């Protein structure tokens, strides 16, 4: 990890997630940070450990009709419906800016079939600036694809193999929390060759508007994110980190350095910040700074000392 400096003699925040080396353990979560450019005015993008872009499919998708979002207690439901410009336009329209950032860019991908996953991966191979691929097998919004892949160990493994077979960069597989035993899926994906795991995607939820007596989302159900889900996410990260050998990236309700540190202690090698970007566009910058402060105050030789260091018994 010598190639990457962590800035002017600051504490050592470097982490290694499955052969992808990051200057610090803070990434922005897919679908919550646009294509990074949106935040350029409001924060310093260069301080990020990495950027994960909105999920990309083989063909452009229009997404769901409105309303697509609704606030819930300490959380929100979304049913964006995976609106995106498709992999080709992503490469030509979005990647040049992202590449120029000189921050690791992870491309989140999704498909309805194994072939689609493989094909998107193939098209991303060799594209400058793509540091890793995150495979969304867990999105609860689209009826086909997503749900089935992420809730069945065999299917999850098949997607992983399809992507790994074509990928030129490390592959991170993003798990769904809407399962009875997430460690079974995690192990299946690990065996299929994933370089790292990220979790959790959103919990499936619903809200009803009492005035109209209709579902609050046009899609009826949506994905729950935000502080409300943090305890579930932390539990799953803890369980999965003990069940697999590959690095785990923690996601779910993180909105402060303290939250991020809890995930590291539970076993995450890095974290992703999602919904919190909407409430405080500077949050990722603040989390990086807060982790650095903690590492210094606790006299740790590196942030890596914290990974999985929760004290049991």
């Amino acid at each position, binding site marked *: 990890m010598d190639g990457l400096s962590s800035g002017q003699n600051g504490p050592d925040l470097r982490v290694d997630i499955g052969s992808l080396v990051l200057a610090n353990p803070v990434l922005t979560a897919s*679908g*919550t*940070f*646009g294509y990074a450019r*949106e*935040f350029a*005015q*409001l924060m310093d993008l260069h301080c990020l450990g990495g950027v994960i872009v*909105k999920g990309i499919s083989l063909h452009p998708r*229009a*997404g769901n*009709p*409105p*309303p*697509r*979002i*609704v*606030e*819930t*207690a*300490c*959380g*929100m439901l*979304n049913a*964006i419906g995976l*609106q995106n410009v498709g992999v080709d336009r992503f490469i030509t329209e979005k990647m040049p800016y992202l590449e120029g950032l000189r921050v690791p860019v992870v491309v989140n991908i999704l498909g309805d079939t194994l072939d689609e996953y493989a094909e998107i991966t193939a098209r991303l191979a060799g594209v400058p600036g793509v540091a890793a691929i995150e495979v969304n097998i867990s999105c609860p919004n689209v009826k086909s694809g997503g749900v089935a892949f992420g809730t069945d160990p065999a299917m999850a493994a098949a997607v992983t193999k399809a992507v790994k077979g074509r990928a030129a960069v490390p592959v991170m597989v993003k798990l769904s929390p809407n399962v009875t035993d997430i460690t079974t899926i995690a192990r299946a994906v690990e065996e299929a060759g994933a370089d790292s795991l990220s979790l959790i995607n959103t919990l499936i939820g619903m809200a009803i508007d009492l005035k109209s007596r209709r579902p609050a989302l046009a899609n009826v159900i949506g994905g729950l994110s*935000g*502080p409300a889900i943090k305890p579930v996410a932390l539990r799953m990260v803890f369980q999965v980190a003990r069940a697999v050998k590959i690095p785990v990236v923690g996601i779910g309700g993180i*909105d402060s350095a303290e939250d991020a540190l809890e995930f590291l202690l539970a076993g995450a090698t890095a974290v992703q910040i999602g*919904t919190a*970007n*909407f*409430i*405080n*566009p*500077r949050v990722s910058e603040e989390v990086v700074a807060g982790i650095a402060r903690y590492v210094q105050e606790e006299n740790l030789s590196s942030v890596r000392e914290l990974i999985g260091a929760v004290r049991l018994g």
Partner: protein
Amino acid sequence: MAQYQENATVTRVEQFSAETFRLTLQAPQIAGDAQPGQFVMVRTGQGKDPLLRRPFSLHQTFSDGGVQLYFKVVGRGTEILSRSLVGERLSLFGPLGRGFRYRPEQPAVLIGGGLGIAPMLFLAREISRQNSSPASGCQVLLGARQKGELAVVMEDFAQYGSVHPATDDGSLGHHGLITEVLFSLPLPAAATVYACGPEGMLAAVAGHCRRHGFPCQVSVESVMACGMGACLGCNRPASAGGYTHVCLDGPVYDAEELLWMV
């Protein structure tokens, strides 16, 4: 396109009716860059509930760095905002979105209904300020539930043009809908109509303008999580097919760009 996140201090709180309030805050960076029709995302509380920021149009900006929000209490977030105290700090970011494309030299008709009054004051001032023959002024049509909601702001608007009020209860101006005032008003040739208000009012105004050949710009709403293009949550069907995103492509549109959801 500069954007700022500011911890703005509340300097004034005005209450116009049971649900209508106006807050003045010090947010010099936002005030310095904002255009009429743009909005800010406001954090209504300190805790995690309510979680999301709320979007509000800039009602007015001041050269001393002040910005004003004009709002109605419709739910929890606006209820908390209405209890703001002078000296309190609120986190704002903006200015956001695409504002009005106004041509100050041409006759302007401004229509604000309910909380749609909010962005019109800023627009009226800019048109009036940039118009070399201020005598012409704007025509300003303001609709509200009752007198209280309009009385104070009408004075502000009167600096920039002639004001035509309407109230649901008849306590001030025309007794009825503000669209009725519009329909009965002879509009100057080459006038542009700028409107903000409930969806039904906007659809009616847009229809009237199309029938009579006036260009019409509308400021519309949608639910928003981020206000800056990151979540894709604020979509509306576009007349060209597909969706437009209110926080980036709007909130101000040429009326023809939109499909009405009424």
